[in-house]
C-alpha cells in the first residue's frame, strides 16, 4: 500500500449467500443436465435397439418365408410321390385283376396295356369259352369291346380282343352320380 499501514480486507460481490445460492442452483442445473443426458442416452439406446430388432425381424420373416416355401415344396413332393405310389399300386392291382380275369383254358400270347384300353392276343379252345369266360367280364368293365377270331392249326382259335374305356363317359357318369347325390 502506498500510504496505509494496513491492507484492506477482500471485497467481493460473492457474499456467502450468493455463493450458497449459486451452489444450490448449480447442483440443481447439474441434476437437470444429467437427467437430460440420461434421456438422450436412452433415446439413442432405443433407436439402436429398434434398428436391431427391425433387422432381426426382417431376418426372421425371411427365414419364415423360406421355410414356408420349403414346407410347401416338401408337401408337393409328398403329394406327388403319394400319387405315384398309389398309381403304381393301382397299376399292380389292375394288372393282377386282369391276369386273374383270364381263365386257365385261355392262353395269352400278348397283352397290351394302354391308357384307356387293353388288348389281348391269345388262343382259346372255343368261341364259347372265350365269350363266357373272358368277353363277358370284359364287356362289363369296358365300354367298347371288339373281338376278332381266326383259327389256328390245332383247331383252337386265335383271338384279338380290343377293349376300350371312354374317359368322357366316366366323367359324365361321375357328374350323374354327383347330381343324384345332391
Amino acid at each position, binding site marked *: *500500500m*502506498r*500510504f*496505509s*499501514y*494496513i491492507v*484492506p*480486507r477482500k*471485497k*467481493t*460481490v*460473492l*457474499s456467502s449467500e450468493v455463493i450458497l445460492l449459486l451452489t444450490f442452483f448449480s447442483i440443481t442445473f447439474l441434476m437437470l443436465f444429467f437427467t437430460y443426458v440420461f434421456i438422450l442416452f436412452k433415446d439413442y439406446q432405443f433407436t439402436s435397439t429398434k434398428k436391431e430388432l427391425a433387422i432381426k425381424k426382417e431376418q426372421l420373416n425371411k427365414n419364415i418365408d423360406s421355410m414356408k416355401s420349403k414346407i410347401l415344396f416338401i408337401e408337393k413332393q409328398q403329394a406327388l410321390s403319394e400319387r405315384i405310389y398309389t398309381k403304381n399300386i393301382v397299376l399292380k392291382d389292375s394288372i393282377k385283376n386282369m391276369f386273374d380275369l383270364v381263365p386257365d383254358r385261355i392262353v395269352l400270347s400278348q397283352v397290351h396295356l394302354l391308357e384307356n384300353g387293353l388288348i389281348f392276343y391269345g388262343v382259346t379252345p372255343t368261341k364259347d369259352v372265350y365269350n363266357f369266360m373272358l368277353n363277358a367280364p370284359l364287356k362289363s368293365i369296358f365300354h367298347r369291346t371288339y373281338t376278332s377270331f381266326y383259327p389256328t392249326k390245332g383247331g383252337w382259335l386265335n383271338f384279338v380282343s380290343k377293349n376300350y374305356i371312354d374317359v368322357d363317359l366316366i366323367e359324365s357318369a361321375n357328374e350323374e352320380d354327383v347330381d343324384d347325390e345332391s
Partner: protein
Amino acid sequence: MGVKLNIAKYFEFLYNKVFVNIVSTRTTSTVYMEMINSKGVVISSVDKHFKTLELDSKMKDFIEQYTQETPFYYISTIDSSPLQWATSEVKNVNKDKNSLVRCYENSWSYNIANNSMEEIIERYKDIGLDFLFSPFSLLAYFFKEKIDGDLAMYVLVTEDYLTLTIFENSKLLYSKQIETESNNKDYELHHLELDLSTDEDEEDGFADIEDIVDIDEETEESIDLDDFGDIEDLDALEDIEEFSDDKVEEKVKSDEKISDFDTDYRRFTLLQESINNYYQDSKYKSDFIETIYIADSVGVSGDLKKYFEEELFLDVYVRQLDLAYEICDMAKMELK
C-alpha cells in the same frame, strides 16, 4: 474459487463504492462518507459528528446505513496518537519489532507503534478497518508538489496534535509529532520527542511531566529573550487562559472556526521549540528555514501566521484542509 473471483470482477459495476473516513480527537469522532459510482463519479457525501471516541451504536448504525448497500466499502482513519514518527532511514526498517514501518517513495519512512495500531484496529473492530494512515504521509501527499523544492517546513495543524516535518528536495530532514494541550487542564500533556536512535521512546507519563515543566520554563525564557514586545501578549494570554478555565467545553469543530488565540500561541510555541531543537542539535544539517507551509484543518487565526512571520521571519503559506476529505482522497489513491 480462483476462477470464480475473476468472473466476479465483471459484476462490480452493480455496486457503488463507499469510502468511510473517520477522524477522531480524544473525545469526538467525525465520520465523512463518500459514495462513488462505478464510473468514479461522486454520487453523494455525508458528514456527521459524534460525541465519542469509541465506536458507539449511533455511529455504527450511521456507518452501516451506507456500508450495507455495497460490499465495496473502505473504512479509513488516521493515527492521531503520539506514538508515531518518521525517519529518513529506509533500509533496516524492520529493526524495531514494536512498530510497523512503511516507506514513502523510497526516500523516507514513517512508523507507528504496534500497540497504537492494535488499539485503533480494536476500536473499530465492529465495523472493521481497511486503511490506516499516518499524518506524515498525509502531509507529504498534501504538499507533494512543494516537497521536492527547496528547504521548507511543513506542519499539519489539527485539533489535538501538530505534525511537523522538514523537507528539502524530497528528503526528510526532521520530523516530530506534537500533542497540543487541550483547554481542560486535567489532561496531561504528552509531548514526545524521538531521535533517530529510537531508544528514547518514552511512554511513561511521569517522565513527560518533568519535560513539561522544563518546556514551560524554556518557552517563557525564549519569549523574554527574543521579543520584548511579547510580554504584553503574555499577559493577555494569561487573562484568556483564566477566562477559559471556567469553561469545560468539549471541542466541537463546527463551533471553532477560528481557534482561540491562546491555542494558536500554544501551537506556535511548541513548533518553535521543535525548530530550535532542530537548529541546535548537531545531528541535523540545520540550514536556516525560510518557508513554512501550514496545512490547516481547524481554522487557525491569522495570528499564528503573524507569529511565524514576525518571530521567526518565515514565509508562511496556509492551506485549508479537511482532514476527513484528505483521508478519503488518499484512500481513493490506494485503490488505483
